[in-house]
């Protein structure tokens, strides 16, 4: 399969992971799109470095030949897939570790509980 085809598949897989598998729904959030707008600028810079200096070179038969800042346009799809999958798993693990009572810092429950020790708001029933 060509890089072009794999890159399109990579994007589809990332969208399915975020919306249907993990249900993190980052693609519906402005926090994601704002972060991605920042990330993609740095991707064009760093990827332009890798491709412009021929640190990485591509087989002309595996890509469409459309390039942006030296890099094949497929790299944008590859990068989008990498970023979406990463951030979806980050949120998913965040939810999971929250539920199990620690925040992933290896300190454990006690420190976390101390960090969120707040009296319940007046008029609200206590959490079950």
């Amino acid at each position: 399969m060509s890089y072009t085809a794999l890159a399109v598949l990579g994007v589809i897989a990332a969208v399915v992971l975020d919306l249907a598998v993990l249900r993190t729904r980052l693609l519906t959030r402005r926090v994601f799109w704002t972060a991605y707008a920042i990330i993609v600028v740095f991707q064009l810079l760093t990827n332009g470095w890798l491709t412009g200096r021929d640190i990485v070179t591509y087989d002309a038969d595996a890509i469409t030949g459309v390039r942006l800042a030296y890099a094949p346009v497929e790299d944008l799809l590859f990068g989008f897939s990498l970023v979406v999958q990463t951030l979806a798993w980050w949120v998913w693990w965040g939810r999971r570790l929250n539920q199990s009572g620690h925040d992933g810092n290896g300190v454990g429950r006690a420190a976390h509980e101390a960090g969120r020790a707040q009296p319940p708001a007046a008029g609200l029933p206590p959490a079950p």
Partner: protein
Amino acid sequence: MRQLGYVGMLAFCLLGTLPLELVLGVRVYRQWRRLALTLLCVVPVFVVWDLYAVAAGHWEFDPDQTIGVTLPGGLPVEELLFFLVIPTCSVLALEAVRRVRGWPVGDER
């Protein structure tokens, strides 16, 4: 110096995003367990893609611009580092936007 062409770019990314942790206080590295689990879910997928792409000849790396440590399958060690560094920087960017704008990410309770 030329051998540092690839790994230098990765160092630039790590150093450039470090103030997000140290100054802005996004608490990404401090949640090292969560970060490690995230990377465990992502890195293998992209290393397999990379190995396939190299085997199929989709792309190749300039041996003069890598430090010369090659992993099984013909990947320069920089490629593995890439899949650790770039996702980490992406998480730092997401958490920085959350920190500055206060928008929900989806892991709040």
